């Protein structure tokens, strides 16, 4: 299976995503340059983390207009998988591939630390290798991760099982939700109504090797493999 990883000029997690696919998942990956007009036959598109075009205006605001995003949008309309990680999540929202927006962290500070996540829906293209209620450890590293949407949208997301990952406290086993960034309803990751686009602020591609602290993130990629390859 072929993963296409979009490189915007300010992307800085494209390298990590590439190596997660090639070294950990052992599948094929190609970089897709933001000025390109085709997806080089990729089955899955990954919008990686970083600062796409500097993000001085709004995270992801400018990236959505780049040539490659026209192709990515078409890919998504065809029902094919798109995974937006961190800045990629922000871009997906700006591009209308996912509802809501990601605003400056409530603390007004960049936050970088490993967080604990709870799998809220294990029956998606991106999480079928997990179980509902499963705890995952992944790093976050962002300044604009406060997921925000209006109440109808939030209710719909919850009702339709589109809320896939939530932040939970690291101490204790009780699933006590919290937001390291002020996200509404502790939302860390969502999927689109059709279920083929996922956005999340945590970095699964940085959690594929126990040596670096966690390998819980590999499940996201394995899940896609399981479904798409099937």
């Amino acid at each position: 299976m072929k993963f296409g990883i979009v490189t915007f000029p300010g992307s800085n997690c494209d390298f990590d995503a590439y190596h997660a696919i090639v070294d950990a998942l052992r599948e094929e990956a190609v970089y897709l340059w933001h000025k390109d007009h085709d997806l080089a036959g990729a089955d899955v598109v990954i919008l990686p983390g970083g600062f796409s075009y500097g993000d001085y205006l709004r995270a992801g605001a400018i990236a959505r207009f780049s040539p490659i995003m026209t192709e990515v949008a078409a890919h998504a309309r065809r029902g094919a998988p798109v995974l937006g990680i961190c800045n990629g999540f922000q871009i997906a929202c700006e591009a209308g591939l996912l509802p809501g927006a990601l605003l400056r962290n409530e603390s007004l500070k960049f936050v970088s630390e490993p967080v604990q996540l709870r799998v809220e829906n294990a029956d998606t293209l991106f999480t079928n290798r997990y179980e509902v209620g499963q705890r995952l450890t992944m790093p976050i590293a962002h300044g604009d991760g406060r997921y925000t949407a209006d109440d109808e949208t939030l209710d719909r997301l919850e009702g339709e099982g589109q809320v896939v990952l939530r932040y939970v406290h690291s101490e204790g086993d009780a699933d006590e939700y919290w937001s390291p960034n002020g996200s509404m309803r502790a939302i860390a990751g969502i999927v689109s109504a059709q279920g083929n686009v996922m956005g999340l602020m945590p970095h699964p591609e940085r959690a594929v090797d126990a040596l670096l602290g966690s390998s819980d993130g590999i499940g996201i990629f394995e899940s896609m493999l399981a479904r798409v390859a099937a």
Partner: protein
Amino acid sequence: MSRFRVALHIVPRRGLLDPQGKAVADALHTLGFKSVEDVHVGRHVVVELDARDATAAEKEARAMCERLLANPVTEDFEIATVSTS
């Protein structure tokens, strides 16, 4: 064609959490500005552009806000002033 200076404000939609506004209000209190009741923080964007006339300049600026400058999900915008520069 002449040169215009359009000033616009892009503000977080009312009702949405405005942590900057809140943090600034708190900080102002800490600094002893007790009279402060509320603070809101948005963007102040000044665009210099060429247009036929002020109306055209404003129309153009509006389009920029809708396409790029403001996030329709979380922000509102207003054209503050249009002046010749």
